[in-house]
């Protein structure tokens, strides 16, 4: 019996937004605008690479929460890469959002070896 082969390509687009420096009230509107554009174009999976941020404030946090809310409605998600500087994302712990966001390593987004 001949082998029956069927292929199914599933492309999941993941938007990785890498930030460096202060993610604060001054920068937040620009990042929000980037997210808005992706979401408008049906991107629903986001990774915020916070590896190199020096600080995250509540305005930056609001951008992350807003993205999470909107992508979840379409069964998407927002995942975060924890910064190198342990305390830079301290606000996530204070607000307990570290238990809401999926925290991943960058290698989980882009598998090593590819």
């Amino acid at each position, binding site marked *: 019996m001949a082998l029956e082969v069927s292929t199914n390509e599933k492309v999941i687009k993941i938007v990785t937004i890498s930030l460096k420096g202060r993610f604060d009230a001054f920068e937040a509107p620009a990042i929000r605008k980037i997210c808005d554009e992706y979401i408008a174009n049906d991107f629903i999976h986001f990774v915020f690479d916070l590896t190199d941020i020096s*600080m995250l404030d509540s305005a930056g946090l609001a951008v992350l929460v807003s993205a*999470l809310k909107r992508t979840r409605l379409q069964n998407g998600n927002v995942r975060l890469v924890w910064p190198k500087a342990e305390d830079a994302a301290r606000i996530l712990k*204070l607000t307990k959002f570290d238990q809401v966001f999926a925290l991943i390593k960058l290698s989980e987004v882009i598998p090593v070896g590819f």
Partner: protein
Amino acid sequence: MLASQMVNSAERFYKLASIWINLGATQVQLLDEDLVLVSIPEEFTPSKSMLSVQSRVSTLALRISGLTGDAWSSIAESMLDGLGSLLTIESEMKDLTAALVETQDRLVAIYELTQATRRTLDIPALMELLVKESKTLFDADGGLAILKEKGQKPIFHQISDKYLSQTELEALAALFHKDQNRFVINDPHLLPPGIHNLMMLSLPVRDKVSALFGVYNSKTDFTSPDIKLAQAIAGQLGAQFENTYLHLESLRRVRLEAEMDIARQVQMNILPQNVPIIDGLDIYAMSAPAFEVGGDFFDVIERSKDSLVLTVGDVTGKGMPSALLMSMTHTVIKSASRMMPFNFPHQVLDRLNFDLFSDFSNVGMFATVFFGTFDRTNSVLSFSNAGQSPIYHIPNGQEPVLLEAQDVPVGVLTENAFSTQKIQFSNGDIFVIATDGFPEARNTFDEMFGYERMKNSLSKSRNLSAKEMVESLLADVNSFSASKLQEDDQTIIVVKVNDMDRTKQFLIPATFEDIRIPAEYLRALLVKAALDESIINGCELAVQEHLTNLVEHAYVGNSDNTITINITCDENQVMIETIDKGKPVNVDLSKVKMPNPMDLAEGGYGLAIIQSLMDDVTYNTNNGRNTWQLIKFIHRTP
């Protein structure tokens, strides 16, 4: 005398005579010596038998016609004696009544004099009343009063037909003072020409006032009752003079108090109302006069961008005289430091001494003066100290060092004898210039606060602001002296050379971009202070959140407004203070709660985050100024 008395007593005699006539007498006559006083009946009817009796106690005699015999004779004698006694008593009674009436008249006169003077609170008017009334009272032709206050010319008042010259009055006063018990002089030889008798008394007024009043040329010589009356008048009027002096004094005092009040205001306005705000220096100065006006002064003058003048002085003595010299001294120093080109502080004191030496020595006063200039380019204080004490230098992290004055006070020596010293300041150094009113404050046991307590107080409060250091010192001095009143002026200047790396003020526009400046500065400051990363990060995040809140809520994104931010870091704490003029916040800081993350709220975290990061968060709003203080305590491991 008896004869005149008899006229009034005729009625009694008629009754007696009718008894004799009933007994058979034809006529009864009463005689005083040979004069027939009364005859009943008046017509004489001759009779063979006649009884004639002479009184044993008076000059009266009784002649009874128509009766004879020893028995009748002895009855007649007794009757005559009784009549004589009666007449004598009546006469005395009449005298007594007259005396009583006179005394009553005089009492009424004193009463009227008292009434008239009661409402008079004017010395010349009182003298006029006294002289006029006593002249009338003693029925004298002249009255006088002499009033002399210590250190002043005497005042004379006379009412008379025969005026005495001032010399004569002074001579009378001297005569009186020689023998104050001799109230009355009835010997014309001792008196000025034209004066034949005089009664003079002193009024019991205060020690510093000698008051005499007198009456002269009375028709009859002055007697002991006159003196008694005059003494009563003297007592009454003396009290009224005393009242008048008290009244005048209280008027003077009220006027003086009003003038002192103005002087105090003028003086307080001479001294600087506020000290210049200079970046990198924390300066506080104050002066509290002990009396209405004081002899202490101070000044903090910004001569140029880089040069600051500090001066504190104390003119010896208290009250108005030292206040006047203080004003002069202060003015000379002020103009010398502003106008005169000088290289060394002692040149200013030389100038001061030159200008005011004679003024000081004329009144036997002098002034201690500290005069210094602080060069901000190299943090060097050059100063000249003419006897001013205490001066403390508190090097950063060390105990206060008392700097003794190297020169004599201003106004003591004619030649210029002042010198200049220099001190190099480091960040965190404190300099205190004060007057002796602090160390010499006394308690109820008469102990002095002293230099040691002052040093300890300054040492204890060294980490506080300049103003708080002064407040702490005042609190220590006040609790030491307790209920004892402040005896001397207290003046002080405290200059703290801020550790500029550790304290900073920002004035930024309220935008999200500009708030990064203080936030990043804070991080750098705390890194430099070698604090734990978690403290550094927490403070930075708290400031970031707080300033974001101000921009978002207080100013609603309006960038025209500004926020003042003071960042301080010392051994014990990090303090961030902000002052804004945006919308006041209506929030109960004790009820702030972190939103539940599952609700995915996009805001409302700021204040909860700040409170969880900082140890103390306070807010108050006053006159459109909102002040926030965020404090993080530092617990260093030793």
